[in-house]
């Protein structure tokens, strides 16, 4: 198990890469969802103004 995390001494490089990838992919999804909600809210407000 320890060997897995240690990655033959390259732990920083391998886990930073995977972590960064996971981070970017998830962040994009989260931002997209937030954006969608914000847009729906904005349109809701605009239609209520009419």
């Amino acid at each position: 198990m320890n060997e897995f995390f240690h990655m033959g001494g390259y732990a920083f490089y391998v886990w930073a890469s995977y972590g960064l990838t996971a981070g970017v992919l998830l962040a994009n999804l989260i931002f997209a969802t937030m954006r969608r909600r914000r847009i729906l809210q904005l349109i809701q407000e605009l239609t209520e103004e009419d």
Partner: protein
Amino acid sequence: MFTFLHKYASPQYFYSWSANWQKWSSVIAVLLMSVGLYYSLLNSPADYQQGETVRIMYVHVPAAWLSMFTYMVMAAAAIVALIWRIKVAEIMIGQCAFIGASFTALALITGMLWGKPMWGAYWVWDARLTSELVLLFLYFGVIALSGAFEDERTGARAAAILTLVGIVNIPIIHYSVEWWNTLHQGPTVSKFDSPSAHPSMLIPLLLMALAYKAYFFALLFKRARAELIFRERNTSWVKALLKESV
């Protein structure tokens, strides 16, 4: 035939049929990513030269492949937007630019993290790295240009022209490792030759590449649909849609 295609391109119709594509792309992406990660991290051998750092390949190479694939999708959308002025295509250009920039930046940074243990340097100015960096600048340019116009449709058309002028960079990146014998390793997977990598490494690589591709489509449709609703906010079908969801 074009009336048939135009139906699919109309914003309202696009919004409804893309919902399914988004859902299925997401499901496939999650499945492939899980299996791919299992193989990448747990079920593939360490390289006899590079050791465990070879695992970085499974996140770096698909990101680089996607950075180029996204540009081709963006270019296709650009052609459609310029010739037929289809609104959905115009939206796709902007969204692809953003997603493409993310993938390119990811490819560059994971590449740097792979380069340090493998070559001893975070960065070298070899042909492939330089042209990938130029690709990142191109994406930034498209994003900047499309956002600089007050009218988003004009901005999309300007971005479309810029995209098509810059398409020359893609073959340069792709073939740079063949044309110049510099530091970055040569092509491993080619359409015409049998790949030079062992299946135990090829399988995780291809799984991750497909996972990234599915993710790309899921994210693209998600963002494009949100943008579409925003741009079409004054139409009756959007208003009806909102009434339903409330």
